[in-house]
């Protein structure tokens, strides 16, 4: 299934987060940065994957050493990056959903 995902506000917010190539993105982190509930983030991620805009791989860690199971990281494909960039340029910066300011935890 390669249908184009609907560029709703929530989808654009998720794409905006995924456009950052520096960090590794996983479900809860995307939900935290967009301010969307996880019940909305995961269906969007599924749609993006089915449109070949997104791919995922598992964190390469030893669960015994890290004391936690590996996470699943999401990153944009070349096609997804291109479309997300185009959507971002066309629509401008997307204000965070629910007026939650995106940010990262500081040590």
């Amino acid at each position: 299934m390669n249908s184009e995902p609907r560029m709703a506000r929530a989808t654009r917010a998720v794409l905006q987060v995924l456009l950052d190539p520096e960090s590794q993105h996983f479900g809860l982190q995307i939900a935290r940065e967009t301010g969307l509930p996880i019940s909305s983030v995961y269906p969007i991620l599924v749609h993006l994957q089915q449109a070949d805009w997104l791919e995922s791989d598992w964190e390469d860690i030893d669960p015994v050493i890290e004391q936690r199971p590996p996470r699943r990281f999401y990153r944009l494909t070349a096609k997804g990056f291109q479309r997300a960039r185009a959507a971002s340029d066309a629509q401008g910066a997307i204000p965070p959903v629910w007026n939650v300011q995106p940010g990262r935890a500081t040590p």
Partner: protein
Amino acid sequence: MSLARVLLGVLTLFVLPIALQEFHACCPWLANKLVEWAAARLPEPDQMLYEAEWKAELASVPGNVVRLLRAIGFIVAAFRMRRPLRDPRQDEVRRRTDFQVSLRLTVEIHGSATIRVRGTAALAAVLVLVIAFASAQLWLASAPKPNQRSGGLAVCAGSLAVRDQPASTSAGARLTGFAHRGDRFLVKEVSGPWAFGETSGPLALRGWAATRYLCSM
């Protein structure tokens, strides 16, 4: 101090804290169970994948109760992900199954209201319901009226003329007359299914008798 107060005190001091502590301790286990249940709602090829992913996500969440809330979020997510994750071939199989056995009604609203009935069995059920409703309406419309059932004489309250229709008095009661027994008549006061009173007399005096009956009301 009443027994109820003592019990309330014991409940507040001992039982409630222990229950809360137990609930707090059970939260991670419960969250894991909820995630497993949520993943089981997904199509089979994706179940293991998302269960592992969500358990990993839960492991990074601090706080037992927050973990439980996140797990509830995964349940909602699972229900929303079912449709996009579903294989179109599975859809075809499900549609065929619906066609054979389903009695489910699917109502979809697109701008204007549209009711879509899936499956021949569901269509047949709807048709039977419609026919039964129409038949009931016809039966009610053609059911014999009280005066028709008696086949007798009815007395109109206004003019006291003898007619074949039941009459209403100003008090809201209905009068129905009968003339079964030779030259005698019978007038009944009827309200709904209940009869409240009656009078009878020679057929020739029916107008006078009905007047007397009405005046006595």
